[in-house]
């Protein structure tokens, strides 16, 4: 089969006509679409504190054990301020297993405050 034959066959396709009620069906669907209220958007502004709390929790869960178990890096340059108190505070927190306590507290606060904020937002609107 040559290119010309293919062109002749594929280029000469009969046109089909839409059924008589097609326009009316489409317009009904469009009117329905126009009168349907837009879907309720997720309240990102209200959820932001919760999301941030989750982020912080993840950081605490993963960063603290890693920080406390890894050896201190060799200083590439001299710090102007002394941060040794941070290290000692983290050591004492680790000793007390404060990471888990903080995690529990933050989760509790998040679980309570997130629904409260959602409800307040709904009633405010």
């Amino acid at each position, binding site marked *: *089969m040559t290119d010309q034959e293919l062109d002749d066959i594929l280029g000469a396709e009969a046109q089909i006509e839409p059924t008589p009620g097609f*326009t009316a069906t489409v317009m009904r669907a*469009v009117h329905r679409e126009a009168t349907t209220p837009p879907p309720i958007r997720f309240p990102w502004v209200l959820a932001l504190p919760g999301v941030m709390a989750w982020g912080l929790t993840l950081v605490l869960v993963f960063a603290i054990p890693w920080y406390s178990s890894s050896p201190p890096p060799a200083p590439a340059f001299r710090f102007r301020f002394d941060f040794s108190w941070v290290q000692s505070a983290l050591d004492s927190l680790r000793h007390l297993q404060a990471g888990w306590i903080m995690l529990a507290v933050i989760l509790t606060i998040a679980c309570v405050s997130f629904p409260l904020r959602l409800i307040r937002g709904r009633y405010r609107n």
Partner: protein
Amino acid sequence: MSAREDQADVQRVLRGDISAFEGIVKRWQAPLVNLAYRFCRDRSRAEELAQEVFLKAYRALRDWRQEAAFSTWLFALATNHYRTAIRSEPSRFVAIERMTELVTRGGDAYDGLRERDRDQSVRAAVLALPAKYRDALTLFYFHEMDVSATARSLGVPEGTIKARLLRGRGLLRAKLTRDVTGLRLEEV
């Protein structure tokens, strides 16, 4: 003329006059249904797909940047929708054995019928090609062999379309020839 009417109707719809969308539907229903039919070869499904495209167009009307013609935007939207829709549906294509049977079926008294069957078989074979060749060939013939319109509908450069047409035609020819030869050998 149509472009100006499209623009005016779009402006009216955007201002809140939904009934103006009817003008757009009336002008573009036949091309959209026909394009859908070339992708699915099922008349009622073609109308369903075209209706979905009109709804999609209505929702996205604000996104039409008026640098391009409304028809270009609409065809690109439709092409995208049809390709996605048929990708997610089970194949309704004619089996290649059936196609070759139709292509080879002989008899002088049936020449007219045979010719029609052959044409149908070739069209069905286009749908059995890999998607990128199928889309290029389908749109190329839909746009009356206009490479640039095909390229705009698919959102790819014209050179890519030319390459796909060349390869697609080659695949189609090879497929039909190979299967016809195979069938003849089986008959012997």
